């Protein structure tokens, strides 16, 4: 799916192609008027101009709509243009065709379809459409000479030039989009840093103070200190995490999604540089880790703590979730997996498999549990 900006970028070119067809239609009609009465079949000549006018209307409506019609419509467009050129064989006399070189009925009107091909399929599309129209030009005339070859060079040339223009438009739009995204990200980062500083200077200092003094006072104050401490840890993790933004390529940094899971019992360790994975994988992995941590809270005992480690090995991303809770006795793992206790184990395995990775679970009595999730990153492996 193309980002909307790329399609919009070509809007001026589509308009120009439509305008070109209207102008060349008027020219074609003028040429037929000039040779009126000299044709083998004058009615056919005027009918062709009528058909061209109708087709100009149809294509204008299609190409000015935001969807620009389908690719097939453009192929049909090319076919109609070639067919109308072919009608000249019947409308023009033999002398007009081969000796006097009177223009074919559509004349330069067919240039527009070459431009359309170029806008749609860049340089290759333009060159191919130009070549097809030239081939019909030779075919209808039935001979080869310098003038026809000059037409061919011009038609293919127009295709290539418009194709390059179209490519440039798309690239420029992409660059502008990337620039806009970078500026948005920068503004967001600056704002986040400002907020983080404010929170750091005010709320966090007070929470830290409450936690410290409360512990010293003991009793009920210590309970309050405990609560303040928890909020302090969570708030620090929140203001420190990078924004959850994804790139234009549909990739996202996995780190902030994991860092927000930090609290007084869960610690998250990540590299200092971004760990980019496809957006969908980032969401899925963050969800998995959240589930695994919730499972620790539910089953590993009231004092159990958990650690999340994110590693980027280049061709794969490794996620470890370890807890120091009660663990599971050997031989009970399979049973536990089917019961509620490790019911999520199956869900984790299934989800990791869908991401093309592997998940292993290690556990022993009183030794906690440890998940290791490995997700291959084929795209970056070849970087």
């Amino acid at each position, binding site marked *: 799916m193309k980002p909307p900006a790329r399609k919009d970028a070509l809007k001026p070119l589509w308009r120009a192609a439509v305008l070109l067809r209207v102008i060349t239609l008027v020219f074609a009609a003028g040429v037929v008027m000039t040779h009126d009465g000299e044709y083998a079949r004058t009615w056919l000549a005027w009918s062709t101009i009528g058909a061209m006018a109708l087709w100009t209307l149809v294509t204008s409506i299609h190409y000015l709509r935001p969807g620009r019609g389908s690719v097939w419509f453009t192929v049909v467009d090319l076919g109609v243009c070639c067919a109308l050129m072919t009608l000249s064989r019947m409308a023009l006399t033999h002398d007009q065709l081969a000796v006097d070189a009177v223009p074919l009925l559509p004349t330069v009107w067919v240039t527009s379809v070459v431009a359309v091909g170029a806008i749609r399929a860049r340089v290759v599309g333009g060159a191919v459409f130009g070549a097809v129209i030239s081939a019909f030009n030779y075919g209808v005339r039935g001979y080869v000479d310098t003038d026809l070859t000059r037409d061919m060079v011009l038609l293919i040339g127009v295709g290539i030039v418009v194709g390059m223009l179209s490519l440039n438009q798309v690239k420029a739009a992409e660059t502008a989009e990337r620039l806009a995204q970078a500026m948005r990200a920068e503004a967001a980062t600056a704002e986040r840093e400002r907020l983080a500083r404010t929170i*750091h200077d005010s709320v966090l200092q007070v929470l830290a103070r409450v936690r*410290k003094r409360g512990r010293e006072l003991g009793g009920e104050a210590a309970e309050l200190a405990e609560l303040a401490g928890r909020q302090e840890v969570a708030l620090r993790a929140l203001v420190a995490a990078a924004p959850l933004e994804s790139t234009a390529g549909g990739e996202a940094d996995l780190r902030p999604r994991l860092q927000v899971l930090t609290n007084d019992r869960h610690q998250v*360790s990540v*590299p200092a540089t971004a760990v980019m994975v496809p957006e969908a994988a980032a969401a899925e992995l963050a969800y998995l880790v959240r589930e695994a941590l919730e499972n620790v809270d539910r089953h590993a005992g009231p004092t159990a703590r958990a*650690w999340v480690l994110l590693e980027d090995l280049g061709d794969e991303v490794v996620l470890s979730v370890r807890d120091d809770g009660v663990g599971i006795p050997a031989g009970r793992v399979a049973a536990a997996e089917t019961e509620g206790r490790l019911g999520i184990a199956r869900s984790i395995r299934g989800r990791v498999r869908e991401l093309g990775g592997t998940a292993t679970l290690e556990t022993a009595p009183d030794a906690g549990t440890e998940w290791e999730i490995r997700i291959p990153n084929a795209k970056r492996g070849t970087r």
Partner: protein
Amino acid sequence: MSEQVISVMVVDDHPMWRDGVARDLTERGFDVRATAADASSAVRIAHAVRPDVVLMDLNLGVESGVDATRAITAALTDTRVLVLSASGEHSDVLEAVKAGASGYLVKSASADELVDAVGRTAAGDAVFTAGLAGLVLGEYRRMAAGPEEGSAPKLSERETEVLRLVAKGLTARQIADRLVLSHRTVENHVQSTLRKLQLHNRVELARYAIEHGLDADPEQ
């Protein structure tokens, strides 16, 4: 004089925090010799009082504690810097460690953890949180994948193994048990991962200085 009191200096721009930490440490028998609120006075005061351990906050208002850490560890070989910072300041913490800090503790750590960490830092051990281990692992991998892969320091298999376990929250004691090593050996592995990183950083800085002519004698 055999059981020397450990002297400490606290650097933080927040008076409330600075005084709280100083009081905690004094109560536990440390000699809090000085405090500082900004990077430049931290370097100046450290030169004057030569503490065993500098507790360094990285977020000193507009200044960063990283340069102060580099200046202090470069000039005062007997002074160690322990970074005490808000969690998650990733690149900052990593930079401070590369600049010579011998450890990192989050500000939300308890007073007991702080006292333990200061003691270990004074004894020359590297104080690693799981978070720092994750950062250091990531840094070695970044260097291995980077353009100067040849000159970059590498972790041995054992060091990687140890560092991963630290990052997963195991204590040195637990790691020693799991890998059937002595506690000392585990500490040495952890320390060596930091030392290699710091050495590489110094070499890189020197190379940069030479390439840019910063080492030239100003007289010439």
